[in-house]
């Protein structure tokens, strides 16, 4: 500041101009959006494939202080984006379908358990401590809800592969979050030797999570009796409700993931009336979604991609293969062809960025874990953040369910 020449007049700015970080972030958003359009037009891929890449490049150029300085409000924005996506995902889970088709439930359990087992074994092989390996395995169960919802919505895909993809993702995200929190409970016991704490913590998270979800679902459902929720203006009320819920969730120190998924599921299954997710609601969230994937990209550093290297690839490969096998095992009895099973299994491979964020929170709570959990896992996550959307998009394209 001292080197800046004094302005000529009192109302003129100093030179060089002092640009605030939000301006840079806005610039990144514009760049990401443009790159998204480019990718869509020339590579025929969903827009979100471009966002993390742009984020990574921006971080490489500008350094990650961009995010660090505005952690607070960015985090809020990300939470809202994530919340809307998870709400939408939850509202696409038809529990009646799971009742009619038990094999689908078995598929879900199969692929999640296989992923858990495989990731655990590989992590142990890589020399990661049992607790950290279990945590990693729990995270590895989840397919990225954000990636799946965005790619499916954007390609307007409909059919057995895309619908099952949504349902399986919602379910494995629930398993994953629950397991992660049960593990936290276990770690509580391990680290502080307090049994009551260890048991009541996950119970609180699940019980209160369901309650908050139910609260949101009930208010939306009430609202819809006298409002056309597909109306653009009604979606503002919806957004407000979601914001309030997030506030409540944060005040209660609950996982956003779980609460919003529960809210969606309760809304869809609580009454029999047809529920269609309002499209304008999605477009409000659209801007935030760009931000979400952008920030995910910003957190990826080039060295992340390299340090984990072959080990990260082993982890990714093993996990993807496990999910694929889990799906294929039950494909025919569950009512899909081998080909659909193959595409569905592969499409489940994107790892869950948001759950990763939860994991980095864990790192803050338990610094002991940070050292062991991070390098390979972050590397694997980074690779999947970049590759995941492309993989899902290609699977949907091959399934013939894309209707753009």
């Amino acid at each position, binding site marked *: 500041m001292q080197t800046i020449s004094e302005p000529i007049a009192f109302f003129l700015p100093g030179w060089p101009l002092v640009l605030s970080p939000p301006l840079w972030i806005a610039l990144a958003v514009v760049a990401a959006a443009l790159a998204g359009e480019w990718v869509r037009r020339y590579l025929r891929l969903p827009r979100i494939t471009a966002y993390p890449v742009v984020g990574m490049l921006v971080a490489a150029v500008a350094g990650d202080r961009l995010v660090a300085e505005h952690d607070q409000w960015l985090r809020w924005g990300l939470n809202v984006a994530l919340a809307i996506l998870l709400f939408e995902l939850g509202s696409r889970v038809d529990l009646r379908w799971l009742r*009619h088709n038990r094999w689908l439930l078995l598929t879900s359990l199969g692929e999640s358990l296989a992923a858990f087992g495989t990731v655990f074994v590989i992590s142990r092989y890589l020399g990661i401590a049992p607790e950290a390996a279990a945590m990693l395995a729990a995270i590895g169960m989840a397919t990225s809800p954000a990636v799946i919802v965005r790619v499916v919505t954007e390609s307007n895909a*409909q*059919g057995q592969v895309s*619908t099952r993809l949504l*349902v399986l993702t919602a379910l494995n995200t629930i398993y994953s979050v629950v397991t992660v929190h049960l593990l936290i409970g276990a770690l509580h016991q391990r680290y502080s030797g307090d049994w009551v704490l260890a048991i009541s913590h996950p119970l609180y998270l699940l019980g209160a999570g369901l309650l908050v979800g139910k609260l949101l679902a009930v208010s939306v459902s009430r609202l819809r009796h006298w409002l*056309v929720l597909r109306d653009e203006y009604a979606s503002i009320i919806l957004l407000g409700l979601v914001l309030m819920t997030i506030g409540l969730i944060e005040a209660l120190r609950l996982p956003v993931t779980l609460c919003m998924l529960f809210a969606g599921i309760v809304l869809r299954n609580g009454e029999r009336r*047809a529920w*269609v997710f309002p499209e304008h609601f999605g477009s409000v969230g659209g801007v935030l979604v760009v931000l979400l994937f952008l920030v995910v990209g910003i957190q990826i550093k080039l060295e992340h991609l390299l340090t984990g290297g072959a080990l990260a690839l082993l982890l990714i490969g093993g996990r993807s293969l496990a999910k694929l096998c889990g799906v294929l095992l039950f494909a025919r009895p569950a*009512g899909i062809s081998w080909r659909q099973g193959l595409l569905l299994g592969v499409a489940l491979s994107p790892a869950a960025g948001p759950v990763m964020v939860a994991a980095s929170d864990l790192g803050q709570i338990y610094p002991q874990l940070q050292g062991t959990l991070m390098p390979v896992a972050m590397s694997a996550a980074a690779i999947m953040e970049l590759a995941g959307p492309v993989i899902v998009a290609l699977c949907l394209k091959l399934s013939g*369910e894309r209707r753009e």
Partner: protein
Amino acid sequence: MNSENQNELPEFSKSDALTLGIELELQIIGGQDYNLIGAAPDLLREMANRKHPGDVKPEMTDSMIELSTDICVDYNDALRQLLSIRNQLVNQADRLGILLSGGGTHPFQHWSNQAIFDAPRFHLLSQLYGYLAKQFTIFGQHVHIGCPCPDRALWLLHAFNRYIPHLIALSAASPFVQGIDTGFQSARLNSVFAFPLSGRAPFVLSWDDFNAYYRKMIATGVVKSMKDFYWDIRPKPEFGTIELRVMDTPRTVERAAQIAAYAQALARYLLEERPIEPREDDYLVYTFNRFQACRFGYDGTLVVPGTAEQRNIGDDIIRTMAAIDVHAYDLGSTEALNRLRTDVLQSRNGASQLRACFAKEKSLEEVVRQSSELWAGRPESQ
């Protein structure tokens, strides 16, 4: 495509008089957004190797499927077969997380979203008719009535023209098209009109004359086979039947069977009592009557062919029912006729139910959801 060409009209097969065959085109609906979904290949794959009467076949677009019965002797037989196929289909649809529904149109689908089913005939039709082929995402009920001799079949075909408005009014279940209330009770038939060879069959009463007409049409190159005629009633020589094609797919299989039973009793009445002798001039009022039935259903006006007498379509159905009651009794379909009569007296058909449902729920998605539950035999409030 040569297999589709029929330069010669096939022999008219012998079939037992007044046997029935029913075909229903169904809507396949996605469980997520209640729009049509191209799940016919999935459904057909899961239905393969399952035992049921009749047949399940692909149709023009991926979001349609056609079920058909075997030859049925009477109403109860038809109903039993339809219920059995329906239950199998619904079981598979439940496994796939999709819905099935009756009704002549999907209330809010956009035809531009439809994919043409991957089979040569359908691609050829799509090339020929362009957007008309996709707009043909409409769902009808076809009823075959067995005739032992082709000349009798043609006579019956033309004798039936006077009663076409009855069949339309009884089955009408397509008031909504592409998200709007068309004001019609059967808007589906408006889509059929767009085809060049739709409408009525030429007035010939002997099979030889019909054969001559067919050869002339083939010679013009306009048609390649009987399938290219989209007439309201057409002879089906392979089966030895006449095929009534004006009905919307009703909202339940029960209603489909009742309508077939009405047509069967009507055919028996016409053939045995010969109350009318069909003439070319009967067709002077044909399209007027047909329009009235599509637009207003039971409340439409029907001009009795050969007279200037105007009647309310609903009244005319009730009067006809009185005339054919004894035949319905002999055929074992008294119950079917009684149910239809009640509905006519209460002005109830698929279209009025759909409108009532929309007025109550104010959401076409919810209308579609309730329709599919009704079709599955799990009605909630209606």
